[in-house]
């Protein structure tokens, strides 16, 4: 018996050959069109090259000292903002998260809590910050409110999803003993969800620090404001120093949070 000597891998995702070709052509057209709208300004870019070199130098030989007062104030604002907003945000998230869990909350409460979460998640931190700055004035208080609001959307959603996923058998078992609603939460829900809630809070602390370095750009205080000023003044060595500080703190936070999560469980 003779066997075929050719074999072609059958298409895995898009089985229709014409559709596959059409998609490829469409992609190519889009790609060219998108690149065409880039509108590159070569003169400006060559001018910028010297700045890029200066920035790279600033990053390699950062200047921590000459703007240390600004940097330390920015850091202080960022760090305090991060902690307070995480604590308050998590505290508010717990009732909202419980309320947003379909299996333990009444339907109306569920709908209200889910919409709070949806609003908080849909709008970017920076836009919220713009509004809070307009309402509460410049400074870290607006930043604190922004991060708190963002934390609620993050923690409450994951907490609610967790509660919805939890082991029904354990809840049933506690309910079967004749426990009230609060007792069910305390004995059946809390033990199952608590380790993850702590893990999420620590993770959010990490995210809030990173975000606190950004919202300063629109006036909500923190290290971002210092960085923005440094770049505006073309002080790239100070900017490099600030970026390095941010990277180091995030690294510490990351290793610290993984250690803390292991320790707490």
């Amino acid at each position, binding site marked *: 018996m003779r066997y075929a*000597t050719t*074999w*072609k891998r059958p298409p895995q995702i898009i089985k229709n050959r014409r559709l596959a070709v059409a998609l490829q052509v469409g992609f190519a057209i889009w790609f060219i069109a998108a690149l065409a709208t880039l509108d590159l300004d070569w003169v400006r870019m060559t001018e910028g090259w010297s700045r890029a070199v200066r920035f790279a130098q600033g990053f390699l030989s950062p200047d921590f000292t000459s703007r240390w007062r600004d940097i330390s104030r920015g850091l202080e604002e960022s760090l305090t903002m991060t902690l307070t907003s995480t604590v308050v945000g998590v505290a508010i998230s717990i009732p909202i998260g419980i309320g947003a869990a379909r299996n333990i909350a009444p339907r109306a409460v569920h709908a209200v809590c889910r919409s709070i979460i949806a609003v908080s998640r849909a709008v970017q931190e920076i836009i919220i910050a713009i509004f809070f700055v307009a309402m509460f004035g410049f400074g870290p208080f607006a930043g604190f409110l922004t991060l708190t609001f963002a934390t609620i959307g993050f923690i409450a959603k994951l907490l609610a999803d967790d509660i919805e996923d939890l082991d029904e058998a354990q809840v049933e078992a506690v309910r079967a003993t004749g426990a009230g609603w609060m007792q069910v939460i305390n004995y059946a829900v809390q033990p199952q969800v608590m380790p993850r809630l702590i893990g999420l809070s620590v993770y959010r602390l990490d995210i809030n620090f990173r975000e606190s370095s950004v919202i300063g750009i629109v006036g909500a205080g923190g290290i971002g404001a210092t960085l923005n000023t440094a770049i505006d003044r073309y002080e790239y060595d100070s900017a490099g120093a600030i970026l390095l500080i941010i990277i180091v703190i995030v690294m510490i936070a990351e290793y610290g949070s993984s250690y803390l999560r292991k320790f707490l469980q």
Partner: protein
Amino acid sequence: MLDLQGLIKTYKTGDRAVNNVSLSVPKGQIVGLIGPSGAGKSSLIRCINRLVEPTAGRITLGGTELTGLAPRALRRQRRRIGMIFQEYALVERLTVMENVLSGRLGYVSFWQSFTRRFPPADIARAYALLDRVGLSDHADKRADALSGGQRQRVGIARALAQDPELLLVDEPTASLDPKTSRQIMRLLTEICAERDLPAIVNIHDVALARQFLPRIVGLRAGQVVFDGSPADLTDAALTRIYGDEDWDAMRRAEADDQAEAREALATQDAMAMA
């Protein structure tokens, strides 16, 4: 054909998995390697194609020494050794054909394998092997769409695609039901007979080993404690390999098992004839 001399494998943890094993396998012979879990069966066969680097000893395959070869030369020698795995170890997300063709990877250039442009002879061989293991209709299916027995057949086809001079078989039936296990063992022994291939088969199922394999080597704590035919595998020998156990009870269960399998095969044959 294959010759092991004083093979030793000591892991970083200090565990000596293989302890001074010397073994020689002539052409066309299938050797069953039995022993309790942790006796070093898996380490031993992985030492042969150096997936596990042996600590000391010599391995020669058809006159070529495998120990001490540089990476490129080692890869060339690995082509000569087909390996069949416990739980199949197919690349699940590739098609059956790609899995079989992956047996040719040692023979083709990176670019040919990357673009899936294998030589026509390799493709014809792959189709022939799929036909031999009874899967000619499944070439374009993804490997994870097959049943356990079918996957192991693909695993056998992949090993044979290498055109090997030796087969290493690691627990081929560990995750298969008794009937499929027997079919796979029969296929393996037939194929080895057809090609006059020597093979080493790790197997924890003593009954299966007895039924299919002409030579059995017992391993305990990394050392060879038995080497003989199934007839020599007495209770005393089993105790030497596994420690004390009620072998009579086991043999009765074994007999039942075999009767059942014979029956199953008989019905299958009847169905095939009908």
